[in-house]
C-alpha cells in the first residue's frame, strides 16, 4: 500500500478545505516567530483499515481569534455575532474533521478505508503548543489573508 504522508499534501488539503468550507484563503508559510499567548489545538485520531501499522493523529491549531473568525465564516455570520464568540474551538474541530476526511484519500489512496476519531480541542499556552508541534514528524503552517497563522501537524505511527 502506498503511504505518502507529505507535508505539502497536508498544507494543500487544509488550505483547500479552508477555502471551500469557510471562504478563508491561505498559503503555506514559514512564520518568522512562534505564536504568543494562547493557542487552540484541535486533534483527532485516524487509523487505516486493515493496516494496523498505519495510524496516528492530526492536529490543527490557531489563535482563539482565528477560531472565532472560522466559526463565523462556517455559519455565515459576523465575527462579533454572539452566536460564535465561544465556538472557536468547535469550529477548529470541524475544520480538522473535514481536513482529515479529505487527507485520508490523499495520503492512503489504496486503503480500503480509514477510521476517524472524534475531534476534540483545548486551549494551551503557546510555548506548550510549540513544544508539541516540534515533536511532530509532519508539521507546517499556513498564513491566512488576515495574517492569521494556522499550524498543521501529523503524528504518524507505523
Amino acid at each position, binding site marked *: 500500500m502506498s503511504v505518502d504522508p507529505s507535508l505539502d499534501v497536508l498544507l494543500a488539503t487544509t488550505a483547500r478545505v479552508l477555502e471551500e468550507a469557510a471562504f478563508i484563503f491561505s498559503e503555506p508559510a514559514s512564520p518568522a516567530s512562534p505564536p504568543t499567548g494562547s493557542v487552540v489545538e484541535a486533534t483527532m485520531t485516524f487509523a487505516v483499515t486493515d493496516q494496523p501499522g498505519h495510524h496516528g493523529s492530526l492536529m490543527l491549531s490557531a489563535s482563539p481569534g482565528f477560531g472565532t473568525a472560522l*466559526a463565523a465564516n462556517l455559519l455565515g455570520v459576523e465575527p462579533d455575532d454572539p452566536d460564535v464568540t465561544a465556538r472557536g474551538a468547535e469550529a477548529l*474541530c*470541524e475544520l480538522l474533521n*473535514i481536513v482529515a*476526511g479529505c487527507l*485520508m484519500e490523499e495520503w492512503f489512496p489504496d486503503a480500503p*478505508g*480509514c477510521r476517524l476519531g*472524534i475531534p476534540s480541542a483545548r486551549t494551551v499556552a503557546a510555548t506548550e503548543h510549540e513544544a508539541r508541534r516540534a515533536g511532530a514528524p509532519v508539521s507546517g503552517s499556513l498564513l491566512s489573508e488576515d495574517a492569521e497563522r494556522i499550524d498543521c501537524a501529523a503524528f504518524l505511527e507505523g
Partner: protein
Amino acid sequence: MSYDFLIVDDSPIIRSVVRKAIHLSGIDLGTLHEAENGRQALATLEQQHVDVVVADLNMPEMDGVELVRRIHEDLSLTVPVIIVSSDRSADRIEELRARGIHDFLKKPFRPEELMAMVRQALPQQGGSRVG
C-alpha cells in the same frame, strides 16, 4: 404540505449549517428536530414524525451506521436518511448504501448539493409517522 426534518450531528456548527441549507431550500418546513448522536435521534424518531433524516457518520455514543441499522431494523421505518460526513471510507459508504441510506454527501459540501438531495428524497416516502 410541510415536511419535518431531523438533523443528527455532534457538531452544533454543522447542525446550524444544515439547518440553514434546509431553510434556503425553499421547502415548506414543518418541524426541525435536532439530535447530537444516534441515540438521541432514535428517541426522537420513536416519538415524532420525521420526513427526512440528515445525519453525520462519526458521532459519539452511536454512529451513523448503527443509527441507520436501528432505524430500519428496530423501528421498521422507511424514512430516507442522508448521511453527511467527512469520512469518505469506501468500505463504510458501501456498508451504508447496503443498509439502504438514501444518499451520501461528503464534507465540505455546498448548500445547493444538500438542498438537491433533500428535495430528491422527499417524494419517495411517506415519512415515519408513529401511532
